């Protein structure tokens, strides 16, 4: 049976994990390689490394961190943040990433999705979409807009039409972040996730708002998500991946449980 995926996300700045999980026996909690390995051993189905380095000089540091993280990681590994061109993507793949995630660069130049897909395969291209409901529309979810710059700048694109375009250009998966839910720990935006899931055939990864086991269960059932991504929930001992997956399996969600 195809299982629902739990994806652990590491935010990395200048090659170091920020807001990292405080594993008691882990001396260096800022090391992306050590943290990724821990999450994978605990049963994370995939690892996403999101580079939030603002400076151009930080790219070399990132590639070094990607290479070190990839070396001992034998689950799918996605790298996002700062990928502006097919050359940037190639450098990240060569460092050991299995997939890349692109967001604002794809909005600025949608052809980038086609170009990366042609060279590395559609399965390797994840299009990340930051969306916010449009409270003034009578269908606030269906009319949700696509934002860039951490949700500060509206693009004029609608989430459903942009997701469909990304798919038609050859995206392998959609990573959908609800800007309304992100950081709240009040639950994923299940309605938004369901609408996007219904609009495309490729898998949708839900992100933003994870705070409890029930939130994950809801986004897999009501939200029809294929996968759910969380970063913050693992940061303060709220849930480790192993406990989360065991509880979801007990609730009837198909899960790959670690041996």
């Amino acid at each position, binding site marked *: 049976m*195809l299982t629902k995926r739990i994806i652990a996300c590491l935010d990395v700045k200048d090659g170091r994990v920020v807001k990292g999980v405080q594993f008691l026996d882990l001396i260096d909690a800022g090391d992306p390689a050590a943290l990724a390995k821990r999450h994978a051993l605990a049963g994370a189905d995939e690892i996403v490394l999101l580079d939030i380095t603002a400076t151009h000089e930080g790219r070399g540091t990132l590639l070094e961190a990607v290479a070190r993280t990839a070396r*001992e990681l034998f689950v799918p590994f996605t790298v996002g943040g700062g990928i502006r061109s097919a050359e940037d993507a190639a450098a990240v793949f060569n460092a050991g990433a299995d997939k890349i995630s692109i967001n604002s660069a794809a909005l600025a130049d949608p052809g980038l999705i086609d170009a990366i897909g042609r060279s*590395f395969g*559609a399965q*390797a291209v994840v299009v990340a979409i930051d969306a916010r409901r449009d409270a003034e529309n009578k269908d606030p979810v269906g009319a949700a807009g696509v934002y860039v710059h951490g949700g500060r700048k509206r693009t004029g694109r609608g989430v459903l039409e942009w997701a469909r375009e990304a798919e038609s250009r050859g995206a*392998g998966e959609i990573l959908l972040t609800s800007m309304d839910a992100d950081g709240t720990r009040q639950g994923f935006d299940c309605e938004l996730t369901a609408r996007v899931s219904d609009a495309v055939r490729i898998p949708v990864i839900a992100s933003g708002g994870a705070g409890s086991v029930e939130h994950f269960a809801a986004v897999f059932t009501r939200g029809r998500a*294929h996968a759910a991504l969380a970063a913050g929930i693992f940061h303060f001992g709220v849930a480790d991946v192993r406990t989360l997956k065991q509880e979801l399996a007990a609730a009837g969600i198909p899960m790959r449980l670690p041996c």
Partner: protein
Amino acid sequence: MIAVIDYKAGNLTSVIKALGALGADAVSTEDPAVVRGASKIILPGVGHFQATRLLEQSGLTAAVRESIGNGVPFLGICVGLQWLYAGSTEAPAVHGLGIFPGECEHFPAGVQAPHVGWNSLAFPARSGGADSLLMRGVSDGAFVYYTHSYRPPVVEHTVAVTEYGGPFSAAVERGNVMGVQFHPEKSGDTGLRVLRNFLEWAC
């Protein structure tokens, strides 16, 4: 030396890395002479079946046929497995090696494609998995990682199946020729076990 054939269909880094972690001496190559000299051959590949056309054009198909005939162990991964069949409806004009009969086909209408994520292995009662060298030590129900839209049919030499809109071949094995539709390099301990079984396989 293990030759990992590079035919410009995606990224080989992960496969090379996993083989390296298992202590194998693996090189990626597009040179038929290197393939002929290899003690084992791996054909990875993600992407379109059409890409396998390059194997014929570059003389790699002939090199692989010759090595397989000489008993060199061969492992196809993903599209590399599909190439062992007669062909694929994804690119009807391109022929596979035909070691396994039938064609790979797109998942049927009503089944969401691509099939992406972790799905479980089951061993057909007939082969029992236990007889399979590739599946040695892998338990029934173990999870592996998939990403594909075309599925290889279940054949006489299928040694593991996965269920997704009906069963398809997760792994095939016929003498020294083996293939897996999943990505062993991305399938955690189960995948590493499959790769190790291949590395330890001796004629």
